[in-house]
């Protein structure tokens, strides 16, 4: 055990590099995913079928094919087609596309969930469609979608672990190296799992913070209490599951 600890201490700088890679993948992947989700999700609410249907096809395509297929496709197939992306770009791209497609469905359904009366009041005040979306509908939909998006972004964080398959040295890869140098699988991977758990917790806290701000902006009771948050998360998970598995 003491050997393990000293090996770990010597390995810390490398482990930190791996953590950084994982964080970069998570942060940039999340930003990409949210951007893609907003673009596709909003397009899917368009009254024009010419916009709606292509967006729907893109979403179903990236939800229906697995993350790893997309990752390998970007990494192995794109170069054959003449587009060489570096592994980091492949990783961020696959994560953003895959989880962006899932999140797009959340964005769409949240926008549709905003009370019809809100749309009607905005029409009655003759607000332009853009203004209506930006000022009235989206701020309310945003508060609704954050818990589900949070669940998906945690899945994105977990999904980053596959990038070691395309030569990136992320946390999972470094943990594999630690295992080899200690010869103790349980020890090395326990450390790895623990770090992922902490990262997921930090991400969740950040999303909770965003959610509190969004609901406070709606003048609702701040959902501060632990039971409120647990209920919200539970509901979000089932939403996200619906978004992940289901279509519509």
């Amino acid at each position, binding site marked *: 055990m003491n050997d393990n600890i000293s090996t770990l201490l010597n390995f810390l700088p490398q482990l930190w590099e791996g953590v950084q890679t994982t964080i970069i993948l998570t942060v940039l992947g999340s930003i990409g995913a949210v951007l893609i989700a907003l673009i596709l999700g909003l397009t899917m609410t368009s009254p024009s079928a010419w916009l709606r249907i292509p967006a729907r096809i893109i979403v179903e395509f990236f939800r229906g094919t697995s993350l790893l297929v997309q990752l390998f496709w970007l990494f192995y197939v794109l170069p054959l087609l003449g587009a060489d992306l570096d592994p980091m770009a492949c990783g961020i791209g696959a994560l953003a596309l895959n989880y962006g497609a899932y999140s797009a469905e959340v964005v769409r359904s949240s926008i549709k969930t905003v*009370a019809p*009366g*809100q749309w*009607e*009041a*905005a*029409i*009655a*005040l*003759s*607000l*332009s*469609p853009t*203004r209506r979306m930006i*000022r*009235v509908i989206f*701020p*309310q939909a945003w508060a609704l979608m954050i818990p589900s998006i949070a669940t998906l972004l945690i899945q994105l964080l977990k999904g980053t672990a596959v990038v070691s398959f395309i030569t990136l040295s992320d946390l999972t890869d470094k943990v594999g190296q630690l295992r080899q140098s200690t010869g103790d699988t349980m020890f090395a991977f326990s450390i790895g799992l623990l770090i992922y758990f902490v990262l997921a917790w930090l991400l969740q806290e950040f999303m909770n913070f965003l959610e509190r701000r969004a609901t406070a*902006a*709606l*003048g*609702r009771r701040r959902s501060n209490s632990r039971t409120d948050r647990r209920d919200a998360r539970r509901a979000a998970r089932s939403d996200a599951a619906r978004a992940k598995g289901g279509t519509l």
Partner: protein
Amino acid sequence: MPPTENTPATPTDTGTPAIEFTDVEKSFGPTTVLKNLNFTVAPGERVTLIGPSGSGKTTILRLVMTLEELTGGYIFVDGQPLTFEERDGKRVELPKKRTREMTTRIGMVFQQFNLFPNMTVLENIIEAPVHVLGKSKADATKEAKELLERVGLADKAGAHPTRLSGGQQQRVAIARALAMNPEILLLDEVTSALDPELVGDVLEVLRDIAETTDITMLLVTHEMQFARDVSHRVMMFDGGQVLEEGPPDQIFNNPQHERTRKFLSSVL
């Protein structure tokens, strides 16, 4: 032409009607709610629509507000087409932008208030004047405060709508609609969602508006005493048709149709 108190006289304006329905038809899928409906509302006239639920009263208001798509016929506001017009014998839809210009003259107050929860009371009121009419923020704020004063909520400008009672929310909604200086105000069962003790304040505000402005009003309400007090004309609807119409005294005291009598005895 301000009408006299309590005994509103029907405006005698014979010019262009404020609202005109021509052969209006509205169906939701296979269900036809309105068919061949023709009527006009004169500028400054206040008309109450009554009738059993499902008779199409609310649909009429929603058609004027362009919340429902007109499936047949035409609606004119100030003599100009609202959503569809006839061109070369064909019925064509107007550009959305044109329709939106038309709707700036029309305000609506909803049963469920529909205030924007992400904005304060003041922001709710100045949103459209600033971003639709292009007023300066300072002017819009000044007017909004005057309107809030008028509806008795001067101290609530900075509050969030969700912190207000239903009656207060509805008065803010009225102020929000008035901030657009509408020529036409549509009131859709504005007191139906309120606790009985809050109804009085809202009706008081509306009475005040009726007495001091010449806004054309189209209302759907179950408050028959209020309808009697403020309206020039009452239209009884049944099955998407005007069953009978006339001054409130005539309709309420001496209805011609058995169905009207039955309906009134069920609500009074």
